[in-house]
């Protein structure tokens, strides 16, 4: 590992607006009467349902089991009765299968597994199995099953914990690192043991000096390093983080393991620590509820299945009518059309944006200024690719490496012609992958 973090190419500096919620300590959200847990919360195969309507479940009980390797089980957020298995509003705008649990108020634990207190002598394979059993996914936003990343097919010598939290507005990871620094470090140590490594590095953007301080105080206990990172969006993207901390470039189309690295989010690390040391499955997470329209923005620990409407209620409701609602941050978050969408394992933020910040731009032709090329952290040519997509030349887009795009949105952010570059790339990626699947079937 190199000593001095290096700045990756490109990136942008949006106003981070983190002050709205950065000083607000995490509050446990009160128990609700009803939780609507979305079944498919991970990248990969949706888990198989194990419960039916009328079943009585304890908090932490298995609701669905993993269907294949790239899939994770799902657990009950509280004790109660399964009152419906139906569709509910999903985060992508399409309704998705969900399990409705009516709470009995007792919130009684029925964890499917025991704590592993002597994790330092436990078999790494057992620890990894626990990570899988606990249903832990990448909690930074992607929702990729954690145990898959912990099973690299290639030799790995570096474990990086992602505490960059470069998305504007979001402060969930910041509060977590500040308030649960010991758990973060413990999680890092367990993850390192699973991978057979001696150490790990926690990368935190320099705009969170208090978090760096808190982590540094306890990091020595397990020989974990804490490293400040230059403030630059998208510093928290996996490939950019690896470049900054390890000085290695992940090849196009490659994975971090191709350069001997594994990256896990800090919230996932805490979930791992809880699963191993306390025997808790992944049923809650810290989410930032923020935005200028809210009366009292802050950070809450929500159970899975908490509706967004409840979260907004907890934040004191709105003082002005918001014009847009996002799950996640303003750069990569998903716009929502329903308040019934519920908190999932990867819901890092719930963001309300006032009307004066949502501009209804019309897209103009590209003026070839090259700003998108300058800021693209993946070093592809957004302007050229977007023109190829407009002409439906997906073969050309593929040749120009549109698949390398991480959809960070930096290009759309800087474009003076307000071109919907990111959406063009989403389209191109979907078309190219669909064509490849078709080809494979033949």
């Amino acid at each position: 590992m190199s000593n001095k973090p290096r700045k990756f190419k490109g990136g942008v500096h949006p106003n981070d607006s983190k002050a709205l919620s950065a000083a607000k300590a995490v509050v446990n959200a009160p128990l609700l009467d009803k939780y609507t847990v979305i079944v498919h919360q991970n990248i990969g195969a949706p888990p198989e349902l194990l419960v039916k309507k009328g079943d009585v479940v304890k908090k932490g009980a298995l609701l669905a089991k993993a269907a294949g390797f790239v899939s994770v089980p799902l657990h009950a957020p509280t004790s109660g009765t399964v009152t419906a298995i139906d569709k509910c509003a999903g985060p992508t705008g399409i309704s998705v299968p969900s399990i409705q649990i009516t709470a009995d108020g007792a919130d009684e634990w029925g964890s499917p597994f025991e704590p592993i207190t002597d994790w330092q002598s436990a078999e790494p394979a057992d620890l990894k199995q626990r990570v899988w059993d606990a249903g832990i996914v990448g909690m930074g936003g992607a929702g990729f099953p954690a145990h898959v990343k912990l099973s690299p097919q290639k030799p790995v010598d570096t474990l990086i914990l992602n505490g960059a939290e470069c998305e504007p507005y979001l402060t969930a990871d910041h509060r977590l690192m500040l308030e649960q620094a010991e758990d973060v470090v413990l999680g890092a140590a367990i993850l390192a043991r699973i991978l057979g490594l001696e150490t790990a590095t926690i990368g935190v953007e320099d705009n969170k000096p208090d978090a760096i301080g808190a982590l540094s105080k306890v990091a020595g206990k397990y020989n974990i390093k804490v490293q400040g990172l230059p403030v630059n969006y998208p510093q928290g993207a996996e490939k950019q983080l690896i470049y900054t901390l390890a000085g290695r470039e992940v090849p196009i189309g490659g994975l971090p393991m191709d350069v001997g690295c594994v990256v896990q989010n800090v919230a996932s690390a805490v979930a791992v620590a809880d699963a191993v040391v306390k025997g808790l499955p992944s049923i809650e997470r810290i989410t930032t509820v923020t935005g200028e329209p809210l009366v009292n923005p802050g950070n809450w620990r929500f159970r899975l299945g908490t509706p967004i409407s409840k979260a907004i209620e907890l934040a004191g409701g709105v003082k002005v009518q918001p014009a847009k609602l996002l799950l996640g941050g303003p750069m990569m978050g998903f716009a929502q059309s329903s308040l019934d969408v519920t908190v999932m394992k990867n819901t890092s933020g719930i963001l309300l944006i006032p009307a004066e910040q949502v501009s209804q731009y019309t897209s103009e032709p590209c003026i070839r200024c090259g700003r998108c090329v300058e800021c693209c952290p993946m070093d592809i040519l957004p302007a050229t690719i977007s023109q190829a997509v407009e002409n439906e030349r997906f073969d050309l887009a593929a040749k120009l490496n549109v698949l390398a795009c991480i959809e960070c949105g930096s290009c759309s952010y800087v474009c003076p012609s307000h071109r919907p570059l990111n959406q063009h790339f989403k389209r191109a990626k979907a078309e190219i992958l669909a064509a490849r699947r078709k080809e494979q079937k033949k």
Partner: protein
Amino acid sequence: MTIILTSLVFASLLGAILALIIGTAAKAFAVESDPRIETVTDMLPGANCGGCGYAGCADFAKAVVEGAAMPSGCPVAPASDSARIAEYLGITSEEKEKMVAVVRCSGTISTTVRSPYNGIQDCRSAVLVAGGAKGCDYGCLGLASCARACPFNAIEIRDGLAVVHPELCVGCGKCVDVCPKDLIVLVPASVEVHVYCNSPEKGAVKRKVCKTACIACRKCIKAADNEDQMIVKGFLVETNYDNPPLPDLVEKAACPTTALRLASKHAAGEYEGVSK
């Protein structure tokens, strides 16, 4: 004077030599082609729509002359034209039923409610962002991907809904491929009665997001001459295109949501604002 003469002589010589080379090459490397292909190409509509499954009219003509395709394989050419081609080639052409496209959705902007959408005006891009602006997960997004794909201008976008004009549609199927919601189907042109809804959700769920959804009340099935004419699939009724109902079914059934419609009247916009 000599300069002019020399250049004239050289130019003529060069011309003669090149003509000789080209002439020999043309003879030696000549590609045999059936002159009938060109004639058949001329007899085809020349829209190059690709509806026949070949790369264009010339490619289709080649297949017809070689016997790989029937003249009636062209969805655009009227039966008289196919017969003319068959007569020219001295083959018997099978009659093929004329097909038209149907967009199985009746949800206009005024009958389906949700959020504004300000992104790329293309259905296949919109569906990737937040499922588009319409409330129904299965409904027409109304951003005209199909209308742009149609080589015959047979699809109109009216109040955020794609409407096929059956008299212009030739059934080439280009629109079928581009619809990200798989809403468009090719059906026999002789059938007039269609259910303009494709949502498999329960009636109550559909009604919440759309006023003109099929709620599977079965009124049309009871009103039909025999029960086989309309098929129930889950919470959705479909026309049985193998045993289609007569056009008067629409009036007899009095569909409470107006999801059951006559194609011609739907194209003319006569159902707009009828359902409450």
